[in-house]
């Protein structure tokens, strides 16, 4: 380890109205060290990083960088001091090309041609090939991350911050990333690696600082501590895996056959010849990195986008051209990924949001007029049955925390006793306790004879609850396989798009990445 630390963080505290996001956080990084910052959603990782990158000012505490006091007023100041950051979200411009995106993140701009050459050169030396002239909107998630990393590397940073980098990568892509990061740290730069994935950290990081509820609960060497111990430190309690019982598969309730769809939005993903079926009592897990067609698949199933009638069969009836309301009446319910704005209207009360999907099956509408008393009653039942923490059904949706709203949204569908339920990222951004409750509810629903389709990025979650597993990659779906007996490597290949089992069609050029 280095003699003088590169970055010291001493007693940083940051309060937002109602929350202490960071409470007396201290740790330090040596040059060339890969340091993990671990914690659950809401543990205070992003707030801490925002302060290091100049996006937020601490209420108390101090930092030093390379021995000198470090108080970045804005991101440009952080960049000038040699701190670079790869964001998880929100920092690329889809309609601009790679070179323009990179130029926006650097202070000193070489002429366009030199910049393009530099991008190629840095890309080559770190194993990150990229074409500077391509539009970012046309790139895959992994390629987009390369843009961000190259943007940082061009500034020769002393400290590189990576925010949840593998959440958008397949296992194989993650391996490539780790290789790149080791090269960077061998060059002397320190890396602050934020994640909640224990395996990543155990393979990559030299040291780890674990946050819980805004406080440092431990600093350790991850290779020397068991994953179970780290998980316990992160969560604060041991969680038992959900209980599941064996059941005999029933009739096919939902069948998707040769579903193809052009993208609805600019830079969306087209769906290509998707096919699967789900039986009563089964859970089908659809894995894959976000942005590979998950949203589009959910919208095709929910009826937001219509297809040929025969592409989607509900109990052998073609429903592909049926609007959402009629599908709900039949018993096909969906819960989209985006809670605020898609699954729920942010400024409407929970009662009004109950009407959003439940008006057909719960009989909340008679002759065009709405039964508000009935809707409130239903909202109350969802709140009570799914432990939604809220003062009552009159509260607007956006006043709820992410986890509580997710419980409400999933609960709203489950309480309507669906025949088929499709959920997309059911536990994204939800704390561990609520996530476990949601998974259990999905399993209970299947046990009761419903068919469940669970689309998720979280492979562990899918392995925990699914009977069948398949993966979505660039709009192609691999053939579902029984979860039992599936190896991690096979899963990785499915996620990476090696859909060898999928029938090759003339002209299809999507091969293994």
């Amino acid at each position, binding site marked *: 380890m280095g003699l003088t630390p590169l970055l010291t963080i001493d007693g940083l505290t940051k309060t937002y109205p109602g929350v202490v996001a960071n409470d007396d956080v201290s740790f330090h990084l040596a040059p060339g060290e890969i340091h993990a910052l671990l914690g659950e959603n809401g543990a205070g990782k992003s707030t801490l990083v925002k302060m290091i990158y100049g996006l937020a000012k601490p209420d108390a505490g101090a930092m030093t960088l390379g021995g000198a006091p470090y108080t970045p007023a*804005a*991101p440009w100041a952080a960049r000038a001091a040699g701190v670079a950051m790869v964001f998880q979200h*929100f920092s690329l*411009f*889809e*309609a601009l090309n790679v070179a323009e995106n990179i*130029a*926006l*993140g650097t202070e000193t701009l070489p002429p366009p041609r030199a910049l393009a050459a530099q991008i190629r050169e840095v890309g080559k030396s770190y194993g990150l090939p990229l074409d500077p002239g391509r539009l970012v909107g046309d790139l895959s998630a992994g390629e987009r991350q390369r843009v961000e990393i190259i943007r940082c590397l061009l500034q020769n940073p002393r400290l590189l911050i990576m925010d949840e980098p593998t959440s958008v990568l397949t296992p194989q892509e993650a391996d490539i990333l780790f290789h790149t990061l080791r090269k960077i740290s061998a060059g002397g730069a320190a890396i602050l690696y934020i994640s909640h994935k224990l395996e990543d950290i155990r393979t990559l990081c030299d040291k780890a600082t674990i946050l819980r509820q805004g406080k440092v609960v431990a600093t350790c060497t991850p290779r020397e501590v068991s994953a179970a111990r780290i998980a316990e430190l992160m969560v604060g309690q041991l969680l038992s895996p959900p209980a599941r019982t064996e059941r005999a598969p029933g009739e096919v309730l939902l069948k998707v056959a040769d579903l193809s769809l052009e993208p609805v939005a*600019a830079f969306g993903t087209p769906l290509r010849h998707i096919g699967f079926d789900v039986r009563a009592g089964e859970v089908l897990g659809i894995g894959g990195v976000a942005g590979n067609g998950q949203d589009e698949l959910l919208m095709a199933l929910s009826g937001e986008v219509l297809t040929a009638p025969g592409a989607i069969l509900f109990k052998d009836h073609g429903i592909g051209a049926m609007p959402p309301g009629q599908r709900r009446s039949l018993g096909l319910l969906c819960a989209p990924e985006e809670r605020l704005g898609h699954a729920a209207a942010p400024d409407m009360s929970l009662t009004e949001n109950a009407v959003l999907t439940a008006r057909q099956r719960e009989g909340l509408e008679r002759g065009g007029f709405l039964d508000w008393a009935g809707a409130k009653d239903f909202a109350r039942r969802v709140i009570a049955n799914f432990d939604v923490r809220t003062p009552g059904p009159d509260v607007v949706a956006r006043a709820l925390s992410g986890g509580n709203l997710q419980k409400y949204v999933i609960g709203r569908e489950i309480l309507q006793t669906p025949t088929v339920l499709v959920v997309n990222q059911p536990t994204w951004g939800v704390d561990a306790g609520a996530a476990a409750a949601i998974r259990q509810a999905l399993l209970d629903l299947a046990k009761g004879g419903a068919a469940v389709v669970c689309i998720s990025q979280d492979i562990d979650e899918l392995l925990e609850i699914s009977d069948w597993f398949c993966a979505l990659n660039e709009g192609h779906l691999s053939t579902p396989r029984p979860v039992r007996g599936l190896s991690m490597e096979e899963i990785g290949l499915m996620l990476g798009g090696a859909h060898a089992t999928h029938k090759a069609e003339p002209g299809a050029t999507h091969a293994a990445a």
Partner: protein
Amino acid sequence: MIDPVTLIVALIGASTPILLAAIGELVVEKSGVLNLGVEGMMIIGAICGFMTAVNIGFSWSGFVAGAAGGAILSVVFAFLTQFLLSNQVATGLALTLFGLGLAALLGEAYSGISPPLTPDLFPQTLQEGSAISSIIFGHDPVIYLSLGLVAAVWYVLQHTRAGLILRAVGENHDAAHALGYRVVRIRCLAIIFGGACAGLGGAYLSLVRVPSWTEGMTAGAGWIALAIVVFASWRPWRALLGAYLFGGIAALQLRLQASDITVPVVLLDMSPYIVTIVVLVLMSSNRVRATLNAPAALGKVFHASG
């Protein structure tokens, strides 16, 4: 008969107010802001320019005052939408309604007066050579300025860092903010630039095109400028094309009304508006073309949250 050379000269003159307003609004929209108050800023520019030019006696002072008037009104819009986060559509409409009222109020004493003349940039001898030379040299300085402005906006947007940042802000304000760019400041500057352009366009209308002051004299020019930005799919040179196309129709219909060709006047009167609608439909029906160049954050409220 209709003389093609005078028609082209008239076309350029008729297009210039709309071109100026459109090129300003193009920059505003590229930064992700939809300002529907163009009509209001134009008419304020028209009256401010007219009053100043009449009182000072030089037309150039009127152009400066017109641009300043439009810019000042746009500051109100910038303050409301960028700092008080008001709805851009409603605020733009308010700007138009307020601008029309205020301009009428300011201009009460100014109807029926002639403004000072705006001389052409080049001497008469240069214009008289041939048809070509009168098309190239036969204009006042503002027309050359408007063309220069189109070129400048194109160059800045495509080839400079400032333009890149502006486009980035209009594309994804959250990402631009995360990189440390001052979204609100950049947008305010764009809005004020747009206001100044619209005001200059208005001043050109009252000082050169008409040239006199009448209430409501913009007659929808601001709205047509907004339509031209859509037609141009946010590209400066296409805005020039759109404005000249529109100006051509306006100039042609005026000449047709004066000639003996019997087309009902009502059809000629409404033709500029109908043509604008038809062109809008043609542009927007092509989904790829309509969405690819449109700023993705257009009209969305930006609030940097903790």
